[in-house]
């Protein structure tokens, strides 16, 4: 398994996709988890734009990625998504908001 820093290419790829994106796909599970955790579209876009790719698995169509980051309120969110090269679009598969741990 590669380290997070090794997913730089996927990060650049994702940022370019988001820059030119005309649409975003939200799978049913993504919509359900967004509702469950109270995560909005603004949060998802913010994390995709500013977060770190912590996992990527490339295939012939694009890549399946996991992005981890914080929204503008500092809440930790991870987004599982799929980048589809042919259509230049991002499909959000699942969203998770992490509970804050108090020291």
């Amino acid at each position: 398994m590669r380290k997070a820093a090794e997913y730089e290419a996927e990060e650049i790829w994702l940022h370019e996709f988001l820059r030119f994106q005309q649409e975003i796909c939200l799978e049913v599970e993504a919509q359900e988890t967004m509702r469950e955790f109270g995560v909005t579209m603004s949060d998802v876009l913010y994390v995709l734009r500013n977060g770190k790719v912590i996992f990527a698995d490339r295939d012939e169509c694009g890549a399946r990625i996991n992005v981890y980051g914080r929204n503008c309120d500092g809440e930790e969110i991870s987004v599982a998504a799929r980048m589809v090269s042919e259509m230049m679009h991002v499909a959000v598969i699942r969203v998770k908001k992490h509970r804050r741990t108090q020291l």
Partner: protein
Amino acid sequence: MSKCEKGGLQSRTVAEFDASAILGTPFSVVLHNAVKEKMCPKTGIVLGHVLPMPEKLISVAAILRTCEPIKLNGSEIKFLRKSMDLKAKDLADRLCVSPEQYSRYENDKLPISNVYEKLLRGEVCLHHLDNVKHIDIDIRGVMAMKIQSAHDIEKPVVLRLAPVFVDQDKPVEKWKKQVA
């Protein structure tokens, strides 16, 4: 988009799609003939929805809400702040209020005063101006508007939007407000 176990994908445009849960808006945002539904042709299982221009959609929802002269509540203030990707402290600084005071506005512990509300509305309009070039925003009108109490309004705020193509050569999609 994951494929259904029985294979294949079909898409169709949804006549009406309530995007308020996805956008996190406390008011209703209904999209007309804009969202594509991905489904399995054999089982009819809906696998997901494709939203066009999500960032512009958020901007349009924020701008149109600021143009409605109805008092903003805490969750609406939060939505407007998040639409600008601002931290609560940063917006408090811009409005020249303390973070504690601003927090009271967002948590509905204190109604926002008309002066700060107009400042907030002005901030939102200026922030989203570039994203919604095809909508005429009268910022002076926003600053001069008479804000009505939500109790005086019979119907809740519902934004009904439909995508419009501006130029055939350069298709620039914009969002048009259908019904106030």
